[in-house]
């Protein structure tokens, strides 16, 4: 396979970045469609295809055309706003400058023997008002891009001009041989001379605002940054070091506002990226590398030189400080792939090298391709039974408590959704009417989910409804001892978990204990635990009794004073409350009193109910 060095590859992106012109030094120019990743068209032998046979000898094959530089620019049309012609300006080793109309595939114009000895560089500003070319004769030509007329010509250097660049605004021209010179484009007066490069400068680029020039010479492993409007004599503002000599330099951004972004491609096809908010910072920055994965060492050995590399890149825009979009052409020159990627300063990137276009030896290719296909075409197929492990819907969310617990969980990110979930709980009963109607039926009497587990045990007992002691007693009496015991267990655990108010539970517990004491005693060894639990609970609550009584006394006092002030006497209510508290704790000790009070309380509460009804 022909070894192509990236140094000899000419690349140029179209201004809209949708095409890439690529010439590998064999006189052919391929136009790649970067959107599709396919060759759009190929230009070979342009010179002889036209009627330029008069100027050049007839039998000249395309291989004799030796392109040395390439620049794609689009000509704006002022008259009509439609696709401006885009031309590809080429310099040849023979000293000709030619322009190719890419869309129509025709030679637009040609300047023969513009630079005797060979054209070394062409450049133009973003507006493409004129083209500058520099050649081995040390001259710089200014060319009208529309007609191809030579406008001006001046001697920039006694030595060959190796590279040149025009600032984006088209005001400053930088030419480089061994030393870098800047010229004012309008009067072609020399502005500055920068010396320091030992050899011929290979690449020159202006920053977006034209305040700095980047340059790098052949064999140098760094890029020098020069200030364009500084003092007469000065050294480089900063130096950006790389591991291999750069072949291409591009920059983006302005020094004042966005910071500087510099992109370079080295000889070995690795892309370097620097960012700094100012030049000093840029100089201290460590480059971020974008490289292609070279995991396949066998491939390396067998195809020496034809390694996938990054060979063209262009900064496209800045997303936020420190990260920029870049358009990168990588892979093999025979089949490049194009990617728009986000370069983040500080994050090295390794791209996957696609093996497209590699001609593999047959023995290897069979296994390779099979392997490759096996990896690539691994398709999972699911049949009808795909949903067996799937989550089933949690059917009903009528319960508000549950939803509240779920909601913040699922919407921790977003306040809107929390808002919504709260709203859900607030309004669900009003809005999903039919659901509510149905759920009302379900929900009746089940305010606690924990209740459900005991539902079987206390079947037939309405804990909520208050029963007079006699009725309660008869109900307990009518129970079979075993069921009564089960009920007791259930009630005890409910009390323990505070599932239900002691006010309702305790009469039942007490009454069962009284009525079925024999049975309970007979089960003593087994239910020792139960009794001890009950005992513990009662104990623990009686401890607090003293304090509760104190508190209730204090409360009584305060409320009495308040009531006195108001002139209203609702002492009884407080008292009743207190009793209620007590009753939970003192059931076994103060049973008589408790019942008496409870009677009283029931009357009161019924009174209250009536009041409310009224």
């Amino acid at each position, binding site marked *: 396979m022909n070894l192509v060095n990236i140094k000899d590859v000419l690349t140029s992106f179209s201004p809209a970045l949708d095409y890439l012109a690529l010439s590998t030094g064999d006189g052919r120019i391929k136009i790649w469609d970067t959107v599709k990743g396919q060759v759009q068209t190929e230009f070979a032998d342009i010179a002889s295809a036209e009627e330029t046979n008069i100027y050049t000898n007839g039998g000249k094959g395309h291989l004799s055309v030796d392109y040395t530089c390439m620049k794609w620019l689009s000509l704006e049309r002022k008259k009509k706003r439609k696709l401006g012609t885009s031309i590809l300006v080429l310099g040849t080793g023979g000293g000709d400058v030619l322009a190719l109309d890419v869309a129509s595939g025709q030679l637009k114009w040609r300047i023969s023997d513009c630079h005797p000895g060979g054209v070394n560089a062409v450049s133009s500003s973003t507006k493409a008002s004129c083209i500058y070319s520099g050649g081995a004769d040390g001259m710089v030509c200014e060319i009208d891009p529309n007609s191809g007329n030579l406008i001006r010509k001046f001697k920039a250097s006694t030595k060959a001009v190796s590279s040149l660049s025009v600032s984006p605004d088209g005001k400053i021209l930088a030419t480089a041989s061994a030393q870098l010179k800047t010229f004012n484009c309008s009067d072609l007066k020399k502005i500055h001379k920068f010396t320091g490069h030992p050899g011929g400068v290979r690449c020159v680029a202006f920053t977006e605002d034209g305040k700095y020039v980047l340059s790098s010479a052949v064999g140098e492993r760094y890029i020098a940054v020069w200030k364009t409007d500084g003092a007469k004599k000065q050294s480089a503002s900063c130096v950006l070091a790389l591991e291999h000599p750069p072949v291409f330099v591009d920059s983006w951004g302005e020094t004042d506002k966005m910071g500087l972004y510099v992109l370079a491609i080295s000889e070995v096809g690795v892309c370097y990226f620097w960012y700094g908010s100012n030049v000093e910072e840029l100089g201290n920055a460590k480059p971020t590398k974008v490289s292609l994965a070279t995991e396949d060492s066998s491939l390396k050995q067998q195809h020496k030189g034809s390694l996938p590399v990054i060979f063209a890149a262009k900064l496209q825009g800045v997303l936020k400080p420190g990260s920029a979009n870049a358009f990168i052409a990588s892979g093999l020159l025979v089949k490049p792939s194009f990617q728009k990627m986000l370069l983040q300063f500080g994050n090295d990137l390794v791209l*996957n090298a696609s093996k497209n276009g590699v001609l593999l030896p047959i023995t290897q290719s069979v296994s390779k391709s099979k392997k490759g296909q096996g990896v690539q075409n691994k398709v999972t*197929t699911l049949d009808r039974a795909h949903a067996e492990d799937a989550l089933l819907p949690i059917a009903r969310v009528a319960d508000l408590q549950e939803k509240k617990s779920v909601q913040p969980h699922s919407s921790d990110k977003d306040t809107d959704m929390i808002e919504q979930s709260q709203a859900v709980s607030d309004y669900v009963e009003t809005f999903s009417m039919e659901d509510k109607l149905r759920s009302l039926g379900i929900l009746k009497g089940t305010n606690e989910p924990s209740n459900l587990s005991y539902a079987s045990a206390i079947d037939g007992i309405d804990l909520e409804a208050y029963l007079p002691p006699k009725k309660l007693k008869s109900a307990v009496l009518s129970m079979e001892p075993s069921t009564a015991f089960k009920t007791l267990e259930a009630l005890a655990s409910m009390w323990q978990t505070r599932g239900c108010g002691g006010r309702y539970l305790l009469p039942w517990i007490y009454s069962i204990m009284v009525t079925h004491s024999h049975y309970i005693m007979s089960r003593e060894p087994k239910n020792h635990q139960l009794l001890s639990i009950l005992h513990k609970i009662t104990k623990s609550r009686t401890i607090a009794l003293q304090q509760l009584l104190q508190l209730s006394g204090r409360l009584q006092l305060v409320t009495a004073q308040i009531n006195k002030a108001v002139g209203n006497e609702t002492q009884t209510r407080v008292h009743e409350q207190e009793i209620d508290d007590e009753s939970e704790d003192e059931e076994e000790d103060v049973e008589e009193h408790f019942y008496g009070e409870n009677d009283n309380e029931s009357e009161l509460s019924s009174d209250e109910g009536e009041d409310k009804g009224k």
Partner: protein
Amino acid sequence: MIRGGRSYVTSAPSFSNDAKKLLVCTGNTVSVFSAATGLQITSLEGHTAQVTTLIVVPASSAAQKILCYCWTASLDGTIRHWDFSGPELLQTINAQVPIYSMVIPSLLSEPQQTDKRYDSSKLVAYVSVEDTSLVREGSTELRGHIRRFNLAKERLPRGDTLKETEEPKSIVISPSGEFFGIRHKCKIHVWDVPSGGSVSKKMTLHHTKVINAFAFHPTERIIAAGDVTGRVLIWRGFGNRKLALGSQKKNARAMVDLDNPGVRDEDDAESCTTWHWHSAEVNVLNFSSDGAYLYSGGREGVLVVWQLDTGKKKFLPRIGSPLLYFIWSPEPTLSSVVCADNQIHLLKMPSMEILRTISGIKPPPSLPKMYEGLSSTVAFDRSSGIAALCTENYCVQLYNLLNDRGISEVQVCERNHQPGDEITVVVTAVALSLDGSVMSTTEVKLPEDGIGGLVSLKFWESEPDSKTFTLSTIVYEPHKDAGISAIAFHPTRSMAVSTSFGGDFKIWVSNSDKSQTDKDSSWICHAVGSYKKKPMTAAAFSGDGTVLAVAAENVITLWNPDKNILLSVLGATLTPITKLCFAGKSEFLVAASHFPKPELSVWNTSKLSSSWSYGLRIEAITSALDSSTFAVLALVPKIFRKSKSKKNVFRGRDGAILLFNGSDPKPVSIWTVMKAEGGSISFLEGDKSQLRLAYVNGSHEYVVFDPNSDETHERSAADYEGLVGEEETGDFGYTSMYGELPDYDKKRKEDAESLVTPFVSSERPWETIFSGSTLNFPPLQKLCGEFFESLMEKSNSVVE
């Protein structure tokens, strides 16, 4: 504003005289492509409606080959004369009636008299026009007229009418310019071109089948015609009696020869032979420039070359799409064949090798009736501006809207596409995840005789290198036998939901989230949900992905997609919901339904109530990611469009894009568009966080514009005015943006308001109960009665 996706195949293209350029009718413009590179060089802009005919003035001598003049005729009723090297408009002739086809015989017949090209008396055009005065009355009268115009006059009179047909026909002219004709059902009418000022004579050839295409031989009196069944008929020596050139010859040949083989009735032809090869209709017929060969093609997508004398055949198979036109260039080695899939192939001639292809956006597939309106065949990658479009040949085309260029095609199912075959597989839906890394498609294998139908759902992972997608997971029968109604992707995670008419929805997740490399990723079913066994018709994830809204016929259910918990149910609309979309990250949910009563409703998920609704038929909804802005594509009702006062506003546009901001029921802006049916819209959020709206219409033409920025409004208004001023054009098939002229704007809004019908109808009181503020919500006891009443009413209506 970017426009694109134009069809290259609406009418026949034409080569320039040096065969280096190819002129293609693209909507309102003529695009000039380079035959060498396949890239567009320039375009001729000026017509305000579709360009229907393109005639390049032929060069008679080698020196003239560089001349670049052409005539165009358009549906806007004008005939224009151009210099396309410039490009420059030289002359405009107003014919006042839409022109469907035009021929100018004198350009062909008098190439020798070079200087008389503009001899005014000679420049006579025969045009096929539609008499629009008759269209309006909706009568069954003959609307299509073949007329004779003299192009020398600036303003054309009515012209002599040669023939009237039901609808406008395309005129075919012989390469020699001596004859022209039209096909009309089973007949071909042929006229000769009178040399002097005399009236042209007419003759008719008959056939038993409907004729689809015909062509004249360049030198001899031979007509080739193709019919719908695939036969190619060759009439030789036509018109010897009736169309004799001189009167003396007429006498000499006025002998009736009844033995003419194959010629029907009293037709004036010497013989008629029939060639069989095509299995389906013949669309393309053309003789080679020397008359030795006949090219034919049809639905099979095979170009057949017949040796005229012997009937021997050569083929160019596997073009892959029905052929529409075949043209040859002045250069004998170059010709072009035009296919229905919006591709123009340039052929290297004797070997018939495809040199280069100029391809555009693929036209939408023709879906069987049952899938119309249900499928969503366009999906957008918001960040990169790529649209995924379903195409005819079971493919999904990835098309870069910003560059107007196709990227690649993804073959959705393994079946080979034969253009002539009946449709057996339908790709019903395509969806792209927000970052464009995953694509999902659904396809239905249509049952043959009721057996063997299969629904499958596929997930595709993107391959950034090759700019295409590779298959990751196939799910056969994802919802048992039921069809998939919608697919939606989670905004941030690898999660998708598919809903089915069978009453359930499934949430799919990719296991690549958890571990493993990218290549091993596959999708599994994460959760299944249903709501009262109602058909699920649409789905959408909220902006942050925490809530999934699934439409169960006419109610919207809100789910937690992770845990599969039903969060709540939003009240009912009147009709089944077909589209759902959260308005960005706001709490608003936009729902659209269209059968039987169209409705666009906006729901407030925080209040669980309907905010507002319009009685509009909605084709597509899209919402911006960050703001609460959303846009809908609405079909404007016919009655409204037709009413006299609004006619000038709509000018044939059948849809409108309405841009809303959150809860505000008043649209921020309205644009009227053409071919809205089957269209689709989406916001595109590029790198510069600049919001753009892309609209792809029913025939895959599209426009990308900035909906918010005032500058765009103004600029486009200026554009619009500029167009009007210079070239008196509007824009056909595309959005026309109305400027911010204040009085006009007001009128627009009024239009919009009068256009919407309030959702609440008075005779159904219970429907109003649930809309409005929750604060003045009536107590439960009162509601109950109303509610049950409503239930009863509903069942009554069902019984009726």
